[in-house]
């Protein structure tokens, strides 16, 4: 070789044959607003088509418009930009479309619950937010009053007890599976436990409720016994497998390096698990446990069977029925629209007078659903904060 490659921008490009690295000159990207044009074209054609068939509606127009936009955009781009860019545009739009479709139920659900629920919470009689401070005792007919303090306390207590039962069992099971079930009989036991946990994940919640009921009835003289703790036991049945699986995944993610580093410092195995493995995995564990709580906090069927419903606050987990938010929603929804013979309803005990509303039961159901979502949201935020403050940091 006599020619040495010249470096730097000043070197003139040597034209030997056709360039192979450059794009063909007709293949160039168009500005973004061309896509808006094809989008508008798609929408117009969609509206026109729907109008012809006399079935014009906004969702249908958007959906059909998007599909037509895919076709128009692809063809237009194919002609003006070439095949590769056309495929790129098409796939980009498909990905965005899939994302929008996935987000739609979530956004619309939040919209509806917040819209209808928050309205009722703010409009509650006798004062705003009274919905969160009053219970349902003495509320009859279509009275625009009453609240969910009893159901909120019930839900929080039962979920708390379900967590108290499930988190230690689930976490210790996960520790056993990851740290101890490595050989011999423990390995066999571990495989058995994993199998049973998988089976447990699939238990329908109503069956868990029946189990809770049957368990307590078997040991109680009173066959119609109902207690908060029964619900907590039933829920823990649903919660344990979720906690086990998520914690197991998180503990397996802790690198073996760290355990070895700890052993090499003369740290016993149990201290290594407590101070290195659990400490390193805590962010993931918190997230997993929060998801498990969020899963059971909205369970209705098991609670309907085991703790029933009341109209006032019951703090005692070991005596009598309790109200919970999901069962409250169910009850209010099933009550349907109220009868309003007069404009007002009078509480027979306290003689308080409330406005009468046909939709009061449905409104309470929405407001209770809103309350439930707020609780889950707060839990999630707390978990996020824990994750944030405890996760390993790399900042210098």
């Amino acid at each position, binding site marked *: 070789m006599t020619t040495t490659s010249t470096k730097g921008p000043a070197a003139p490009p040597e034209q030997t044959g056709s360039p192979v690295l450059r794009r063909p000159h007709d293949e160039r990207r168009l500005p973004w607003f061309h896509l808006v044009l094809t989008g508008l074209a798609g929408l117009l054609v969609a509206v026109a088509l729907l109008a012809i068939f006399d079935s014009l509606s906004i969702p249908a127009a958007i959906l059909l418009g998007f599909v037509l936009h895919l076709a128009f955009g692809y063809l237009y781009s194919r002609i003006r930009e070439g095949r590769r860019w056309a495929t790129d545009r098409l796939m980009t739009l498909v990905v965005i479309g899939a994302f929008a479709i996935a987000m739609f139920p979530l956004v619309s659900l939040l919209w509806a619950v917040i819209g209808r629920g928050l309205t009722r919470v703010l409009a509650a009689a006798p004062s705003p937010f009274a919905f969160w401070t009053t219970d349902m005792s003495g509320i009859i007919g279509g009275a625009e009053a009453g609240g969910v303090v009893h159901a909120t306390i019930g839900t929080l207590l039962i979920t708390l007890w379900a967590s108290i039962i499930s988190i230690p069992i689930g976490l210790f099971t996960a520790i056993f599976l990851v740290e101890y079930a*490595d*050989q011999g009989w423990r390995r066999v036991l571990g495989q058995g436990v994993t199998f049973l946990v998988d089976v447990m994940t699939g238990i329908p919640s109503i069956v868990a409720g029946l189990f809770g009921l049957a368990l307590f009835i078997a040991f109680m003289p009173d066959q119609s016994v109902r207690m908060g703790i029964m619900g907590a036991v039933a829920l823990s049945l649903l919660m344990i497998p979720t906690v086990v699986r998520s914690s197991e995944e998180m503990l397996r993610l802790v*690198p073996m*390096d*760290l*355990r*070895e*580093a*700890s*052993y*090499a*410092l*003369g*740290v*016993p195995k149990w*201290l*290594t698990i407590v*101070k*290195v493995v659990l*400490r*390193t995995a805590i962010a993931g564990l918190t997230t997993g446990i929060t998801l498990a709580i969020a899963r059971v906090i909205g369970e209705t069927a098991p609670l309907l069977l085991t703790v029933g419903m009341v109209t006032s606050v019951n703090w005692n987990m070991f005596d009598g029925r309790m109200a919970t938010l999901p069962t409250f929603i169910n009850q209010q929804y099933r009550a349907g629209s109220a009868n309003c013979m007069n404009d007002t309803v009078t509480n027979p005990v306290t003689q308080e007078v409330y406005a009468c509303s046909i939709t009061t039961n449905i409104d309470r159901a929405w407001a209770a659903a809103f309350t439930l979502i707020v609780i889950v949201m707060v839990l999630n935020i707390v978990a996020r904060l824990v994750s944030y403050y*405890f996760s*390993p*940091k*790399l*900042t*210098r």
Partner: protein
Amino acid sequence: MAAPQPINVEDLNIYYGDFLAVEGVDVQIRPRSVTALIGPSGCGKSTFLRTLNRMHEVIPGAYAQGKVEINGENIYDPRVDPVNVRRRVGMVFQKANPFPTMSIRDNVLAGVKLNSRRISKSAAEELLEGSLKGANLWNEVKDRLDKPGMGLSGGQQQRLCIARTIAVKPEVVLMDEPCSALDPISTLAIEDLVHELKEEYTIVIVTHNMQQASRVSDRTGFFNIAGTGKPGHLIEIDDTQQMFTNPSNKQTEDYISGRFG
């Protein structure tokens, strides 16, 4: 303290389950000196190293038979607690592995803190400074002791791990290819450190780098393996000078001169 005694290894067989990985090691490792272990990949030198502080058995199914005497005490005696062995025989790994949740300070004091031992604040500061100085890291990190250990460079992380190991005040420090992931400058820093550490500790270092073995060690052992699936053997151990200039075994000579494999 009594004069340090050598580590006596007698007829040590090392297994992974049914598989005999290293067979019949007989060796005496001199105290307060550096012993390097070289040999091709998979010949069992790291496995052997890990049996010197019973880290080998952390792997499911792995065990060792034979005798390893440290200060006249067989660490494979059934009455011996491996946790106590590891407090006296520290280990530095191939990949620097500082605890990601801990600051530099906590990483160095990990041996104390993880064992839930009480230590006065002044004693902790003294130990911290002593260990970091011992690992030649003090000047680089003294202004950011409360920053995460993971924020350091690879070479600094490895020296942090060495500081963490010597903070437990072991008698022996095992090093499993401590420089294989480091650049030449960091490698030099670690090698200098090894030279200083041998004043106080008995050091056994596994390395793939023969120049490194000849630079840092007083004695060198050569491990070899007859073929895949066969157990590794300690072929020869001698003064480093002797090993690299005039090895007595043909296999050693082939390996060192690059005619091997």
